[in-house]
């Protein structure tokens, strides 16, 4: 399912690039990140990256969208059964960005029509994902619940980030990542909008990766789970024996 999302993204990128080739869209944007790797270390408590860039040509509005890697998300709805709230119905969405953050010079809904925003996946209401098949009228409520759930985790920040424009040419924006930022390959896309149209776009990759001891522990726990279990036990047995021995003497 994640593959469909990626293909869709590639397709829209290709369309965008094709659009760029037309002489009408001579506008261009160049942007880069202060870092292309976020290292989730043992002491990781969230981080901030700087995105900076320049606009060529006349003044335009800038929208920056950070999208995390696609994942399959199951949304469950509780129902009251015998006095207890219990998960009854569920729908699975594919290719859902694990993280989504938007920054813009003006609120996006004032910059372009819903149709344009939806085509580019700009704004929480327009995030592109693979909708579950066979869903009935519940789809919009489940989709809204998915966004709410992600927001509760701090992964779809509700407030739009700020972009500072300097002399209508240079722009910069701080992008915050919380401590529970999912790992994987991210895309940071800068859109240039004028007169209700996307006139240029540029995508920069960003990798969020566990490094150091934590990364090795996670990899070991998943690649050699039985051995990991034995190691966890050995640690506990030693700690218990050690504590007993130390405090018996004391």
């Amino acid at each position, binding site marked *: 399912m994640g593959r469909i999302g990626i293909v869709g993204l590639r397709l829209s990128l290709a369309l965008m690039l094709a659009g760029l080739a037309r002489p009408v869209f001579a506008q261009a944007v160049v942007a880069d990140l202060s870092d292309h790797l976020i290292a989730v*270390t043992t002491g990781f408590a969230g981080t901030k990256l700087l995105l900076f860039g320049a606009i060529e040509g006349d003044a335009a509005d800038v929208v920056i969208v950070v999208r995390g890697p696609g994942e399959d998300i199951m949304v469950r709805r509780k129902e009251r059964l015998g006095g207890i709230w219990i998960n009854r119905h569920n729908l699975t969405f594919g290719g859902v960005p694990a993280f989504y953050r938007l920054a813009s010079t003006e609120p996006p809904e004032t910059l372009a029509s819903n149709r344009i925003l939806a085509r580019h996946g700009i704004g929480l209401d327009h995030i592109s994902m693979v909708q579950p098949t066979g869903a009935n009228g519940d789809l919009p409520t489940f989709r809204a619940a998915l966004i709410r759930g992600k927001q*509760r985790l701090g992964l779809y920040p509700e407030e739009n980030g700020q972009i500072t424009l300097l002399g209508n040419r240079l722009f910069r924006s701080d992008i915050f990542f919380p401590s529970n930022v999912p790992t994987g390959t991210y895309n940071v896309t800068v859109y240039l909008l004028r007169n209700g149209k996307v006139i240029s776009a540029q995508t920069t990759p960003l990798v969020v990766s566990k490094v150091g001891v*934590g*990364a090795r522990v996670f990899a070991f726990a998943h690649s050699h*789970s039985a051995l990991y*279990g034995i190691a966890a*036990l050995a640690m506990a*047995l030693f700690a218990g024996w050690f504590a*007993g021995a130390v405090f018996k003497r004391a």
Partner: protein
Amino acid sequence: MQIYLPIAELSVNVFLFLGMGAGVGVLSGLFGVGGGFLMTPLLIFAGIPPAVAVATEANQIVASSVSGALAHWRRGNVDLKMGIVLLLGGIVGSTLGVWVFGLLQGLGQIDLVIRASYVVFLGIIGALMLIESLKAISRQRKPGGKRRKLHQHNWLHGLPFKMRFRRSKLYISALLPLSIGILVGILAAIMGVGGGFIMVPAMIYLLGMPTAMVVGTSLFQIIFVTANVTFLQAWQNQTVDIFLALLLLTGGVIGAQLGTRAGAKLPGEQLRSLLALIVLGVCARLAYELLARPDDLYSIGALVGHG
């Protein structure tokens, strides 16, 4: 100071979790309970995913029961034969429990089952403890109360496969400790507890074991059952976080020592009614979450590829 927990996949405050370990450690030292039945709900309240909380707590209980069991072993308070029969049941029960755990996780009902099990067991245990200790307090005030009959004969003594347990001076059906072991094993896997709070009363009231033997023997069984749970959870569900376990262990070891020392100087029955109130408080909070209309009826969860 923050530390990133690699399996729980979130960053937590080191001192908060050391403190939680120490707090529950003090209680377990004071009352001689494992503390798993308080720690696992606390971890869930603190935002640790329930599956990780349960599996990691089992890992911590291995450590705390080892030091406890060693102390009782030195004093000769472990009935090895009884412990092994309980253990056989415990291995069967916990293996079954881990399997059911994975199944419920797939169905999206594991959180509900964990919470519901806690509500039921904490409610029963808390109420029984409160009644017991209030009775004991009133007995202390009015001396000369009736002594409980040591040993009662009922249908449980008519079961087959009788076995002699010399240390406990018992001649009972092996099916009894075996089924207690199975039940406790299932609870250990699903609730992330050692199960002492179920096993100790069951050993005293159902088996009629001498109280001196009960704690050491149950700790002996708990080591191996929680070890089995830890191993199986790590192997099948990858939910044991050793960083989290280390934090809880460190706090717990220190807290337990403080608790043991303080316990010797404090009035026992009043403390026991206090513990009963804590248990009932945790129970009420969990029950409220099950019964009250949730703020959001919807919840989300990632579908893990290898799961």
